[in-house]
């Protein structure tokens, strides 16, 4: 009986998974990320970017690799922002679709469990904004097939703490964070360590749970501690809500955040409450280098790109460079080629360190919200 079931299941999966022939002039590139769930905004943005770039390459006649011109096919799957789905999708991309490389995902928790599958299939992955150090390095060993184009949590936390202490002259800070979110817990940890190392004091360390919409109990407590800055390392929906509620409670402290902030939604929802706040970002939106991509994206999709688009853009650039360097559309060769690669991306110079597979020395940009605009302040590198 069981055998029949297994067979039936296999048939169903075959039927569902058909399509995409084995044209030897076509290189398949995978993408995964959230197209449903509360991270879907970013997932859609990433996939759009990746598709757009490869369409542009195709329209330009493809890319020459090892003396042969290749066209690209992008295969993107939804992982619902879920680790288990990421594993399924990675198996599908590497096993069934036979992609040579994968772009994404944006969440660290989704990227980490991909590693053994990538190693087995010998397919490299370039994560976009997965900032947990353990995405590429585990127990001091670099994972051979995991790469990324963004800076990592300890760095971002150090930048935020350093900027708050040195540039904003903050001596006391409060932290509000999402206890059930890995990204938020990571930033909080490294912010605290670095801020205290500098000589500052954490006067309140409060948390909430994913899905919460009311932060006033925690904020009332923070208000009583009267900090100079409040560090809010989480995503823009909660940032807007908590900023509004903080202002309602009469909290005037400067708000400080990370790369979960930038979004049109933050401005439209947060309004006056986030005015004058600072956050750590991967790039300066006004940088001349990013303008071309921004306008191409807007022209094609009729809306502004989110932050993820820029990093997905650079991930594609890094992949293409790696592919050219490898000289053949082969995952193992590309992974080798990616080590030590040096590419000028729109978010900065990306030099993938062979030891960590991270873009070493990539500066962070500090942005300030002024009149509903993200105004670049300075490039800031933590010591």
């Amino acid at each position, binding site marked *: 009986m069981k055998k029949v079931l297994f067979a039936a299941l296999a048939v169903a999966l075959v039927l569902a998974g058909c399509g995409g022939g084995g044209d030897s002039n076509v290189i398949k590139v995978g993408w995964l990320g959230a197209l*449903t*769930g*509360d991270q*879907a*905004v970013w997932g*859609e943005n990433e996939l759009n970017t990746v598709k757009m770039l490869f369409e542009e390459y195709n329209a330009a006649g493809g890319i020459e690799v090892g003396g042969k011109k290749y066209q690209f096919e992008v295969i993107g799957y939804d992982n619902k922002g879920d680790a288990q789905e990421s594993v399924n999708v990675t198996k599908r991309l590497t096993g069934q679709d036979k992609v040579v490389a994968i772009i994404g995902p944006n969440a660290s928790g989704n990227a980490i469990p991909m590693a053994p599958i990538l190693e087995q299939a010998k397919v490299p992955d370039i994560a976009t904004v997965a900032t947990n150090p353990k995405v590429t390095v585990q127990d001091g060993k670099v994972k051979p097939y995991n790469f990324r184009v963004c800076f990592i949590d300890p760095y971002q936390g150090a930048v935020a703490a350093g900027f708050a202490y040195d540039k904003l002259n903050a001596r006391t800070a409060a932290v509000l964070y999402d*206890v059930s979110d890995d990204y938020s817990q990571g930033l909080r940890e490294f912010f605290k360590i670095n801020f205290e190392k500098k000589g500052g004091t954490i006067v309140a360390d*409060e*948390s*909430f*749970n994913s*899905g919460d*919409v*009311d932060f*006033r*109990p*925690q904020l*009332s*407590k923070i208000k*009583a501690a009267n900090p100079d800055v409040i560090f809010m390392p989480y995503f823009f*929906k909660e940032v*807007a*809500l908590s900023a*509004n509620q903080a202002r*309602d*409670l*009469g909290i005037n402290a400067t708000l400080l955040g990370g790369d979960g902030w930038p979004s049109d*939604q933050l401005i*439209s*929802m947060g309004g006056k409450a986030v005015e004058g706040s600072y956050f750590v970002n991967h790039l300066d939106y006004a940088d001349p280098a990013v303008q071309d991509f921004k306008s191409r994206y807007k022209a094609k999709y009729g809306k502004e790109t989110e932050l993820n688009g820029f990093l997905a853009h650079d991930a594609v650039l890094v992949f293409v460079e790696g592919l050219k360097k490898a000289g053949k559309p082969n995952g193992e060769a590309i992974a080798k080629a990616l080590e030590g690669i040096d590419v000028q991306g729109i978010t900065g110079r990306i030099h993938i360190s062979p030891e960590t597979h991270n873009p070493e020395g990539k500066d962070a940009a500090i942005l300030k919200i002024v009149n509903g605009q993200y105004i670049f302040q300075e490039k800031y590198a933590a010591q």
Partner: protein
Amino acid sequence: MVQFLQQLINGLSIGSVYALMAVGYSLVYSIMNFSNFAHGGVIMLGAYFGFFGLTLLKLPFAVAFLLASFGTLLVAIIVERIAYKPLRERKAPFLYFIISAMGASILLENLVIATIGPTFRTYPEVFPKTPIELGPLAIGRLDLIIFVISAVSLSFLIFFIDKTKLGKAIQAASYNVKACALMGVNTDKVILTVFGLGGFLAGIAGVFFGMKYTVYPQIGNITTKSFIAAVFGGLGSLPGAVLGSVLLGIIETFVAGYLSSQFRDLIAFVILIAVLVLRPTGIMGKVTEDKA
């Protein structure tokens, strides 16, 4: 002292949102004896109806508000017809209702994601957002308005149930649906009314939730808390639902404010379980002795 009062205000404000949601749960529970998990989805739709009424159709607030409430009334009835009525006719056990409700909840949430999109939306400012300041205390204007309208709609509901013929039938049915049917009460009509009322309240809750916070497809998830509040107060009891919600709001706030925000939900769950152990049917739940 100031912090204590402020936290009390915070707690009441959170509790009042739970209450609007919990009443809908309790109402359906009192008749059908199952937890209608689709209620969260209906509340979410209410928030969207109100949002689009205000932004797309540019309706005045009162009209958009009514549009949302009647819209969700309709949705609740449609859900009942499709997902529960066939089960009722089969006399299926309560498990099936719950699973069907979960299916409806998954369906509604993802239908919105697929059609309207996953992005968050912000209500236009209908009431000024600046809080009323009483010395160092801040009370949200919207909170006061929510409080008043909730009180009015809940009293309307209690009036309806106590004074009208249909309301009396609902009361009778909540004691014994079968006996009611034998005595010539049209139970189908009673059940539709209950879902309609629950849906109407869901619309109100949705609009207020959207105004107070924001609109997004996963609003339904937060209703887990209001479900807990309803259980806490005693399922099937309307005053219990309100009391449970306010208590849960205050407990959560005080735990976060004075004990630990890290363990807020944990402590809230511990208290919930303690209440259930001491009073197995919640604070004001109907006690049904198993008659031998």
